[in-house]
């Protein structure tokens, strides 16, 4: 599964093409070389996430691991679970669950500004498209770190508040209608 998506190069003020592809050793090497030192020196909430370990766990076909690559560097990564979770908005209907999602440290808000914008949006839009492919109609669920709440609220995911079964992380879910709106404005609709 792969797709070509568009992200925004801030310095050049230019929309550029990026590839969304299954995670490979190259992406994990990027994580170890470029992401990890910056994350570990930061107070980012995901600074302890070990993508290399996450990707090395033998996974059933219910898991899909993706990387967003641009300029031959990994700009974002995401793990989806496509069978196990059920919707809270629509009583028990299937959905795609975003298990983990992170953008590269240099693409996050900072005093010097991000290198690329819209990496997170591209990853989420791709996850919505996967949900449509799997006939879940775009339904999407996830537990979010507090710093990411604003991002998911902006995308109009419904905030169900803290979930005691998941370290009190807030559970967010995307409705079919909002998913349809997001996809209709995306590259996936063209």
């Amino acid at each position, binding site marked *: 599964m792969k797709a070509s998506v568009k992200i925004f190069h801030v310095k050049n003020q230019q929309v550029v093409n990026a590839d969304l592809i299954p995670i490979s050793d190259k992406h994990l090497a990027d994580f170890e070389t470029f992401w990890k030192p910056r994350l570990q020196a930061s107070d980012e909430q995901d600074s302890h996430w070990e993508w290399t370990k996450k990707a090395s766990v033998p996974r059933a076909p219910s898991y899909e691991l993706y990387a967003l690559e641009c300029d031959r560097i990994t700009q974002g990564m995401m793990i989806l679970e496509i069978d196990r979770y059920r919707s809270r908005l629509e009583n028990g209907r299937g959905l795609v669950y975003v298990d983990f999602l992170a953008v590269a440290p240099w693409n996050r808000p900072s005093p010097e500004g991000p290198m690329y914008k819209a990496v997170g949006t591209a990853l989420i839009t791709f996850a919505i498209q996967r949900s449509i492919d799997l*006939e879940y109609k775009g339904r999407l669920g996830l537990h979010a770190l507090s710093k990411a709440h604003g991002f998911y609220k902006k995308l109009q995911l419904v905030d169900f508040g803290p979930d005691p079964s998941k370290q009190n992380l807030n559970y967010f879910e995307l409705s079919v209608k909002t998913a349809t709106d997001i996809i209709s404005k995306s590259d996936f609709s063209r």
Partner: protein
Amino acid sequence: MNKKTLISLNLSSSELELLTELSEKKEMSKSAILRQALRMMAVLEQRIEQGEKFYVESLDKEKSEVLLF
């Protein structure tokens, strides 16, 4: 998005009825139901091969039943 292959499948009337029922209940095509069932079965097989067991918990969470496959 990903390439799919068309196959023919022999199902008994009761199996077809079950597939139709699930398809209607979950508002998914029969193909999507079968694909999901296949993935779920692969998950179960993988976990069983690792020596794990599956339990179904009752609503009061007091009783659990081991599932054998």
